[in-house]
């Protein structure tokens, strides 16, 4: 299922996603969220030299293409990576699984090839 969703992303949906990513501040925000997320706007603004208002606009732009989502925590908005996070994790497992498929096929040939 993650395959078809990814395939769809690579086609029609890719343009707005790439457009939303074509900004150094946004890439840094995603980087921070992927390592330390979920984070509040205040935390995400720290040390960036960019105003909270600007950070909020960047996060909203990322939210519109489904890269991040936000939730309220008290009076704060807290952002996290969206489904892509899970997609990434699943695609990673697919890759590791493919390595094991290949290894298992070699093992099969190895133990069956001696008769």
């Amino acid at each position, binding site marked *: 299922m993650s395959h078809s969703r990814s395939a769809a992303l*690579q086609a029609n949906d890719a343009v707005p996603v790439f457009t939303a*990513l074509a900004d150094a501040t946004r890439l840094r925000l995603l980087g921070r969220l*992927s*390592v330390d997320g979920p984070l509040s706007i205040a935390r995400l603004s720290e040390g960036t030299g960019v105003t909270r208002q600007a950070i909020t606009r960047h996060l909203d732009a990322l939210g519109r293409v489904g890269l991040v989502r936000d939730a309220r925590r008290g009076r704060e908005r807290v952002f996290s990576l969206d489904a892509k996070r899970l997609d*990434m*994790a699943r695609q990673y497992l697919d890759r*590791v699984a493919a390595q*094991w498929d290949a290894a298992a096929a*070699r093992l099969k040939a190895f133990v069956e090839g001696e008769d």
Partner: protein
Amino acid sequence: MSTDRIEKRVVLRAPRSRVWRAISDAKEFGTWFRISLDGPFAAGKTVRGSHGSFKVDIQVERIEPERYFSYRWHPYPKDPAVDYSAEPMTLVEFTLEEAEGGTALTIVESGFDRVPLARRAEAFRMNTEGWGGQIKNLERYVS
């Protein structure tokens, strides 16, 4: 769907003793896994494997002859330039059972949810298409 584990099951047309040797004998393991190991497998022992510049430490956990073999290691990607020693390892388990016409082997690798996402994202370095390219960009900013 779990993002924590992978499970593979395959029926090998060979006796259990033969499959067991291919898995538990480090030399034989290295042949089909395509890695050269610097010593025999023994419970509690760490064996170093290499394939060119690619290196990996295999920490053997448990050996139950002809039935079960497990070890811990750092999962893919195994970048020779990166020190993974502080990161969580995954558990790899091989379980053998009698099956019609041979031996059923189940391979389970688990513990991926503890592996940092940034590390998992590195697996896409080789992939220059679609998401791979984006994640590659992202990595530059994460690291």
